[in-house]
């Protein structure tokens, strides 16, 4: 079952070529969740065409770091450049509407990002047979594939992936890694990936454990209204 890009096929999908973008640069970043500083002194650079794999035990702040890069929460200290407007975030939830079909879901995200929906994306994420199925009737793995297909639809060059392979089977994981390598990174895109499994990417691994903030680090006061 080979449903993702094969080598060379990506060039037939010109909409996935990215304009040259700046590298994602993180300097002296501190990240908090719920007023508790989790990571501090974080610094790395992800060049276009490169990926960075985040490792670390549960609760160290991988999700909070990705949300900070995506602009969903402000950093406690430090600077992030090159992500934000260029980044597509994929978290634990897929953002899939159960009452809409697979095609309607993807068409919506294409519309929000001002792009046309390319039929190729259904083939590449093995969704062709599921096009007219209501997303609510998909299995967890199929739903995750739909969530990942959204990333291709947005056409954004920087992917921020939080455990992207959860509930995918081995073939789908391999297919997704191939898509990431051949159709995204090879086209000048970049990615920051928090994952516990080896995707087989030629990407450096950043262990977050040395950046764990001390328990008495100054907290942040960014709380919700209610």
């Amino acid at each position, binding site marked *: 079952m080979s449903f993702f890009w094969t080598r060379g096929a990506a060039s037939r999908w010109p909409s996935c070529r990215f304009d040259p973008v700046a590298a994602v640069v993180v300097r002296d970043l501190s990240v908090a969740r719920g007023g508790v500083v989790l990571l501090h002194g974080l610094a790395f650079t992800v060049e276009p065409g490169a990926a960075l794999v985040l490792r670390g035990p549960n609760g160290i702040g991988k999700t909070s770091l990705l949300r900070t890069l995506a602009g*969903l*929460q402000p950093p406690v200290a430090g600077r992030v450049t090159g992500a934000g407007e260029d980044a597509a975030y994929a978290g634990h*939830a897929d953002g899939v*509407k159960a009452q809409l079909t697979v095609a309607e879901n993807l068409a919506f995200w294409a519309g*929000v990002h001002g792009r046309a929906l390319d039929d190729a994306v259904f083939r590449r994420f093995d969704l062709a047979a599921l096009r007219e199925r209501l997303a609510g009737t998909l299995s967890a793995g199929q739903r995750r594939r739909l969530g990942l297909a959204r990333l291709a639809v947005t056409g954004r060059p920087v992917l921020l992936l939080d455990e992207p392979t959860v509930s995918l089977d081995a073939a789908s994981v391999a297919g997704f890694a191939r898509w990431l390598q051949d159709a995204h990174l090879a086209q000048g895109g970049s990615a920051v990936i928090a994952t516990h499994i080896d995707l087989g990417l030629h990407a450096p691994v950043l262990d977050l454990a040395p950046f764990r903030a001390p328990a008495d680090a100054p907290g942040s006061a960014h709380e919700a*209204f*209610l």
Partner: protein
Amino acid sequence: MRALVLRDLRLALRAGGGFGLGLAFLLIIVTLVPFGIGPDRALLGAVAPGILWVGALLAVLLSLDRIFALDHEDGSLPLLVTSPLPGEGIALAKAAAHWLTTGLPITLAAPVLGLLLDLAAPARLWLLLALALGTPALSMIGTFGAAVTLGVRRGGLLLSLLVLPLYMPVLIYGAELARRGAAGEAVTTPLLMLAGITLATLALLPFATALVLRVNLR
């Protein structure tokens, strides 16, 4: 923005989307009122604009917590906020979709429901006008309230407490416009005030809603 409005309309029309709930609620209120205050036709006709306005308010209130809560649950709200759509655009699109699925049907149905309360023909037209002018403000204020209570467990009651006082000016001028119009009195003041309130909410609240959304998604 168009994509978001169209998606919300489609979701509202699908199973479990809640379209028509507000309308059915208003119908029940209008049916109950004559049982409560008796079959005095003159009295019913006199209170009909007020009853229909309060009913419309409560019917709109019913569907407010769906505006952002469903998108928050399935994770699409953070994806929307990080999309090229500006936060203000999201707020306006959400309010527009809410008005099209609740405010507009209520506006169109109210004159017909007025028949049940023996509302006179000219009064029905004035009520239609007043609701058409006022319900967009109800949706916009409600969208703001939904953003403020985002992520609060069982935020529905809190949302009502927050939003109903803000609805008061719309109710006052809306009901007054319908009453004066029906009685043949001067309508300029309530008409201008109601239009002004609606325009002011549409101009200001999208910005407040966008800000609150960002803070609540942190």
